[in-house]
């Protein structure tokens, strides 16, 4: 009985989640006429024309994919570079205001992004960094870093202190203890953090559309361009969405195991930081 209920609930949830994706997938292989047909056609002749357009046509999103990759890749790399040492320090060193720092790092996440768009825009314009990669990456860092630090701290705290004490006595020194003993043990947490940061910047739209301008157009912004006042190109939009989603799905599958663990760990340990 319980199994049956569980099954029904799971299937229901799956349908709710999968439906838009499937609808998008179906739309992406329909011609414009089939898309607009009413009632919706169930049986139709699939076409690859939307994908062809999206990759090779006048509105190719390939440059946008490259932009997204550059922005997300740089954001992820820089975030990890700064977040790992910061989280390690917060988890381990006896610094004054350690707890308060941990809280305020997280508190920056409480600001609504939309309230920050205009200040960021003004700041970047003054610096001459609107429409630039460095501008957008810098802004993404301000969101990604606190999140990554907060997530990583809980992973580092899980590792017994005796690990690095043993490494220190084994003459490793702080940095090598971190590199050889702590980081390998926090591998799962680092993978989760890395993927979350990458996905967040890959999927980001608001800041990209406002601050990226015409030079830095990420794939989310490009998708938006298939919607115009006169016409929405549903087929191409769906194809672009499918292409843009692909890396997300691949990463998700690779990291599935870690992500589930990471989510629950964050949930349990987030509030209970020492």
């Amino acid at each position: 009985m319980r199994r049956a209920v569980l099954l029904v609930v799971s299937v229901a949830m799956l349908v709710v989640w999968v439906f838009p994706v499937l609808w998008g997938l179906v739309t992406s292989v329909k011609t414009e006429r089939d898309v607009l047909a009413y009632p919706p056609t169930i049986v139709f002749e699939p076409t690859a024309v939307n994908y062809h357009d999206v990759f090779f046509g006048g509105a190719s999103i390939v440059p946008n994919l490259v932009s997204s990759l550059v922005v997300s890749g740089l954001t992820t790399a820089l975030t990890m570079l700064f977040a790992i040492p910061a989280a390690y320090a917060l988890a381990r060193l006896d610094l004054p205001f350690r707890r308060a720092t941990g809280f305020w790092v997280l508190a920056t996440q409480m600001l609504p992004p939309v309230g920050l768009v205009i200040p960021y825009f003004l700041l970047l314009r003054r610096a001459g960094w609107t429409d630039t990669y460095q501008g957008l990456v810098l802004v993404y860092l301000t969101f990604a870093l606190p999140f990554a630090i907060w997530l990583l701290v809980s992973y580092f705290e899980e590792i017994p202190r005796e690990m690095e004490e043993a490494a220190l006595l084994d003459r490793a020194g702080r940095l090598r203890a971190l590199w050889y003993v702590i980081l390998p043990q926090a591998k799962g947490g680092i993978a989760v953090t890395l993927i979350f940061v990458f996905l967040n910047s890959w999927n980001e739209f608001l800041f990209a559309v406002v601050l990226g301008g015409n030079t830095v157009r990420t794939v989310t912004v490009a998708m938006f361009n298939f919607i115009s006042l006169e016409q929405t190109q549903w087929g191409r939009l769906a194809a672009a969405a499918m292409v843009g989603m692909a890396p997300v799905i691949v990463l998700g599958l690779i990291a599935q195991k870690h992500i589930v663990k990471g989510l629950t760990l964050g949930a349990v340990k987030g509030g209970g930081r020492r």
Partner: protein
Amino acid sequence: MSAASVSLAGIVKRHGAVTALDGIDLDVAPGEFFSLLGPSGSGKTTTLRILAGLEQADAGTVRMNGKDITSLEPGARDVAMVFQSYALYPHMTVRENIAFPLRMVGVSNEEITHSVQEAAARVRIEHLLERKPGQLSGGQQQRCALARAIVRKPALFLLDEPLSNLDAKLRVETRVELKRLQRALNVTAVYVTHDQEEALSLSDRLAVFMDGRVVQVGTPEEVFSRPATVEVAGFLGNPPMNLLPARLEDGRATVEGSLISLPSLSGLGRREVTLGIRPSAVRIAAQGLPATVTMCEALGEDFFVDLIVGECLVRAKLRGEERPAERSRVRIELEPRALHVFDRETGLRL
């Protein structure tokens, strides 16, 4: 490998308002197996961690071979430590674990292979080198931790309750082996334990810790047979020494309203004392202190008898004699030569 001498002088350690160590002075001779024994929270592990350099003392100096190492980093001290939890690196194989301290100082691969093999052989885990710590039993993990500690041939070997996670049988076996290993390597060892049996059987000398102070240092025999304070007397022995308040006057003691004659103590004059007597030195006799038997517990050849004398509980360890019935009234005799006398006020041995 040359064994180091170690000395602590005036070590003070505070955690906020709590004084964890209150002026520790200790001298450990080269090659000695030295135990820090005490109840939990008495400061023995903190002392060990200060020796290792994992914690800094608030005052006092740590010397190794006469050299001041008080502010030296752990890695610069030539000490190896076995942690209570073993602290094996879970992502490395046993071989990599043991090799780690050598890799960190750039020893050649060839030499590492050789040294790892030798250390593993010493603790008989050569056949487990390719496993991960998670695939080892508790005893094997403990050996792996030992091998990692001895592979670099340290001058000082620190052990923090290394046997406490093993089952009783393995603990006794490993104890013997640990001692043999220390002797074979001729290394100074400082060993923390709350298990007096371990401390008494392993140590050349030991220090008894109470409330952040060292209350007695000596060989196991000395500490056991001549406890310096009433606290040590009450801590050592299983079961520990019986402690009875008494009034001493002209070679006679008044214990719970009864007089016993103790001519050997006539030199102590007139004062309030605590008399200590080991359970094995209490006998049931025709004369002596009146007592009521509350419980009899057989332990193979011996049996323990709980007696109430006045308001005090006295445990006696008897052998071969007739077993007294519970709730019977008997008289007990305290063997005069086995009596320990402590000042009631200061707790010091008289």
